[in-house]
């Protein structure tokens, strides 16, 4: 009974197509948004699922490495460990993953998805059992951001019988992992406890010595109970989670010249930088299931508190100072050399080179009730699958930003004694109602899906600084976002799909109501083939933005998320993925998977923006931080009790700014004409099963030890993670 209910919950919630599949054990008990892998072949839209087997193969902690195999995902690396990933889909800015919907078990998991969408909290991917990527018209079910897509992280389900596991690993640069879980179901009641601890000393070397790594701990508990009334089955589940991170992370990178000499160096000025956060979550799920009808209600609450103490820039008691980006871009110039020398600790500060450290202290909450339902019926001899959902959501960010000033004295930061100065003290809050409805009708060879999403957002910004009570804004915004898509079955194994939907990204409460929200019309057309171990998909996409909006957060060098409009922009590209499992012998198989993404973009007008990533933009210039070509090739060999896999990933160079060359104007984008490095990384992993319950594994990330500038933001050149060897042991019971 339990199996059937949960299995139907998964597939029934979202499965596209009229043919419900019998779920296999890998799908059991997870609250998925996509459904079973087999069902995905007839989804009218681009979706991808990375299941537990795939995730365990490489034991990645960094979501960027995991998503490298998914076409249409653009990523800007930052700290090398993926602590705060920058992910975009189909050309939207990857900046702090703010334009995609990040969900855990189907619930928005960003700290404040409406009020402050920058994802400074990201769930630990090491504990996930599946990762689902949705792009195209299917996105309409997941708001508020519909321009790009949704990323759903699926946590471990409560096991149906006594089950546990331990995974321990050690690696270079002090890397340590300890991961364990245990759960059981007794009668109709089940539970699960899971703990994960990750830490590393860091691969960067501070000029003054000291760790540059991190420590993260994640605890999760689940309790569920299942019962039936008549022909209706019910499931109640409570998930509780706690995560904390302390990381010696900085926004300060290097000059290009220093990077080429020593890419993993960190300047003395970043010696006190530290991120410290805590996240708690509670999710209560109630699911009811009948023959042709199911309904899932989720009540959720997430709290996030963070304080990031880090170098913000310079101050002078005598007036203005240049930006860190400008200094690192021209460190030898007369105007900037003295600042550079202070950053590195080579010379002491004078009153003109005081280093400012900001403590960006923020408290967030996100809570709501989300109800999703599905009803299957036949009308005029046509099978319909009708889905609808409503979400009452509220989130808030409270900023309590402060700054302190330091002198560089003999390579140590010494407080000037001026005390702590408040900078931003404000609150942004959003109360929203979202609804969607979608009907999929089976017309024989064609599955036709039409849907609409409504976003009703009431938001409130208030400056909490004494004397600024009148600095507030209240906004109400209502928008309807339609979508239509179709899947045409060519034969039992292949089909053509296409669709169009309205893209939307809301503005945050602090942004002037006069600023237009981001809107686009998104098109896709694709072909999919799937047959016994072979799958292939090719999708062309085109996003026609009537207004591209970017927000400049701390990670881009702004204090508060200031937003900028670029007007009309086109982004288009091609996504290709193909996989085949070759059987070499009775005991040897070779899975091969290739993915490739081509993306191009252009602004449709000439304009100037003081957004540092744009500057002087000419009609036809490309959107920054989009690699034209990205590809990955994974090849494995799997024996009866062992496997070896390799992933070769390539990312092309990306422009650091839309402005293509300096003009000599003082308002030039500092990084005009500068590109990140293109880079190729090779990751290897090998697993050997010692017994039915235990295995050892070894892996090498970035085996070729590629040293590339993956971005020059927030301030200066930053490296990818260097070669890292890890060995680990897993035991299941």
């Amino acid at each position, binding site marked *: 009974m339990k199996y059937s209910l949960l299995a139907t919950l998964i597939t029934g919630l979202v499965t596209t197509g009229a043919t419900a599949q019998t779920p296999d054990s890998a799908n059991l008990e997870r609250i998925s948004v996509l459904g079973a892998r087999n069902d995905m072949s007839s989804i009218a839209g681009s979706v991808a699922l990375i299941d537990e087997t795939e995730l365990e193969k490489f034991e990645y902690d960094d979501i960027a490495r995991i998503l490298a195999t998914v076409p249409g995902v653009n990523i800007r690396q930052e700290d090398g460990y993926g602590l705060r990933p920058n992910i975009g889909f189909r050309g939207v800015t990857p900046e702090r993953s703010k334009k995609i919907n990040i969900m855990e078990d189907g619930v928005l998991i960003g700290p404040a998805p409406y009020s402050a969408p920058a994802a400074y909290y990201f769930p630990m991917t090491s504990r996930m059992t599946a990762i689902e990527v949705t792009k195209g018209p299917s996105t309409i079910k997941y708001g508020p951001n519909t321009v790009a897509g949704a990323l759903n992280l699926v946590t471990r389900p409560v096991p149906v019988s006594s089950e546990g596991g331990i995974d321990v690993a050690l690696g270079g640069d002090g890397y340590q992992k300890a991961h364990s879980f245990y759960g059981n179901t007794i009668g109709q009641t089940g539970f699960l406890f899971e703990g994960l601890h990750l830490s590393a000393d860091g691969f960067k070397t501070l000029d003054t010595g000291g760790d540059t790594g991190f420590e993260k701990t994640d605890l999760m508990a689940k309790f569920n109970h299942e019962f039936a009334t008549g022909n209706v089955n019910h499931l109640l589940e409570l998930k509780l989670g706690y995560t904390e991170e302390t990381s010696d992370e900085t926004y300060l990178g290097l000059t290009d010249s220093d990077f080429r000499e020593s890419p993993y160096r960190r300047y003395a000025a970043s010696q006190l930088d530290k991120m410290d956060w805590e996240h708690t979550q509670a999710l209560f799920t109630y699911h009811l299931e009948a023959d042709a009808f199911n309904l899932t209600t989720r009540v959720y609450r997430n709290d996030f508190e963070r304080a990031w103490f880090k170098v913000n820039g310079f101050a002078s008691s005598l007036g203005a100072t240049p930006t860190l980006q400008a200094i690192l871009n021209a460190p030898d110039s007369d105007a900037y050399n003295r600042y550079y020398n202070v950053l590195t600790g080579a010379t002491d500060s004078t*009153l003109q080179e005081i280093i400012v450290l900001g403590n960006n202290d923020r408290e967030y909450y996100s809570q709501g009730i989300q109800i999703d339902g599905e009803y299957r019926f036949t009308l005029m001899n046509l099978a319909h699958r009708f889905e609808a959902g409503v979400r009452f959501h509220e989130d808030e960010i409270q900023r309590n930003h402060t700054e302190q000033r330091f002198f560089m004295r003999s390579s140590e930061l010494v407080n000037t004694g001026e005390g702590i100065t408040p900078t931003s003290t404000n609150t942004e809050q959003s109360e929203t109602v979202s609804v969607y*409805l979608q009907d999929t009708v089976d017309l024989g060879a064609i599955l036709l899906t039409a849907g609409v999403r409504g976003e009703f957002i009431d938001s409130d910004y208030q400056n909490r600084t004494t004397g600024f009570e009148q600095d507030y804004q*209240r906004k109400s915004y209502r928008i309807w976002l339609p979508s239509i898509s179709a899947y045409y079955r060519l034969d039992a194994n292949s089909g053509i799909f296409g669709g169009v939907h309205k893209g939307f990204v809301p503005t945050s409460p602090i942004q002037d109501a006069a600023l237009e929200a981001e809107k686009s019309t998104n098109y896709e057309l694709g072909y999919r083939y799937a047959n016994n171990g072979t799958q292939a998909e090719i999708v062309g996409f085109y996003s026609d933005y009537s207004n591209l909006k970017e927000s400049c957060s701390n990670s881009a060098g702004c204090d508060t998320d200031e937003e900028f409009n670029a007007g009309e922009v086109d982004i288009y590209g091609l996504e290709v993925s193909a996989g085949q499992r070759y059987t070499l012998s009775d005991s040897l198989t070779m899975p091969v998977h290739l993915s490739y993404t081509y993306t191009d973009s252009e602004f449709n007008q000439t304009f100037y923006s003081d957004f540092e990533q744009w500057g002087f933009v000419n009609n036809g210039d490309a959107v920054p931080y989009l690699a034209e070509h990205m590809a990955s090739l994974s090849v494995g060999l799997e024996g009866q009790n062992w496997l070896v896999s390799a992933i070769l990933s390539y990312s092309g160079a990306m422009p650091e700014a839309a402005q293509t060359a300096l003009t000599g104007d*003082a308002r030039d984008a500092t990084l005009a004409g500068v590109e990140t490095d293109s880079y190729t990384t090779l990751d290897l992993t090998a697993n050997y099963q010692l017994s039915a319950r235990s295995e050892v594994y070894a892996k090498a990330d970035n085996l070729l030890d590629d040293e590339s500038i993956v971005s020059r933001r927030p301030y200066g050149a930053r490296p990818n993670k260097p070669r890292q060897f890890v060995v680990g042991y897993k035991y299941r019971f």
Partner: protein
Amino acid sequence: MFSLNKIKQAMVLSVALTATFSLSGCGESSSSEQGEQFGGSPQTPPTTPTQFNQKALLESVANNVILPTYKLFADNTVSLSAAISGYCDAQRASSNDTASWKTQSQQQWQDAMVTWQMAEMMQIGPLLENNSNLRNKIYSWPNTSSCAVDQDVVLSEQADYDIATRTVSRKGLDALEYLLFNDTLDHSCTSFGSEPVGWDARTDEQKVQARCAYAEKVAADLTIQAQVLLNAWEGDDNSGYKNIFINAGEPGNAFTDAQAAVNDISDAMFYIDSATKDAKLAAPLGIIANDCGLSVCPENVESPYAQHSLQNITANIKALNLLFKGGESSDAVGFDDYLVDVGDSDTALQMTADLTQALEYAQSLQNTLTHLLENNPDSARTLHGEVKDVTDKMKADFIQSLSLELPATSAGDND
């Protein structure tokens, strides 16, 4: 007890209602309400509707204050250049008049500096273009470097040296101050590899002559820049910036309205806050961090070689007073008149009194600012307080009554 059929019915009904609503044409709508301070707008709008003639204020300030100051400065630079040439000629001839020429050069520098400190309060238009490039060519403080000047003393002896291409910390009034008033003949470069080549091997006489020769080049360049500034404002046939400025808001003009140009003057006047009050007084007093931490630090005064800091501050206050009144004459139109016009006579009177008091106090101080900081820092603190009285009023009533925007440099609070 729930009924499954009822839930189904409710669901279908809600979907139908939603669909109806979505198809009813309400694709997008918005509404908003903002507080008076939102987006940095003034806390309160002008209390009295005004018919004030802002153009008259712009003309008065341009004709009676800004242009006369720039013209005087251009004249000062010509005199300064001539005096330095005389000084260098005397040096080269080993004339007995050398000391007299040097004193004359120093006096000319002081005269030019007093005028420029007036102009510092008038950084509008051409002086601000390209990151204040022209302003920095004339006077780059606080971005100064005695080592950079020492380097160019030697580099300028090369045939292909072109001062026009050199960075701003190597020329201008600040470089001339070092060259004319610093009697230490050793170079000031401390980091390895930055020393001027061959300097230590030179005799004292060679060093003095080399510095003087470079001062001639700097003075000549200063003359050119002063003229560039004047030309930029006057232009040929009234085509200069002044024409744009006084016609602000007229069709085709770069300013959207006259108030925007008035706001540019206001922005310039806030030099009194960020530069005069904070950088020139609060920093050496240790009210904000300086090289001594939070203690009195005489080495952080503005013009340390010429010991001219107090005169600079006095000139700043004087210039602010002139801008506020729109000129010296009684029929000048200034911000005092604007305040009276919008019904805030109290602020007009109070600011006039505060400015007069600050100016009189600055003028009453004897000795240099360095001396005061070392021997009587309370008097310097009092001067800081007098200036702060003015800036407090400017940041509040002045800005609010005239619906002006506070410049970003004064939005933070060092008080």
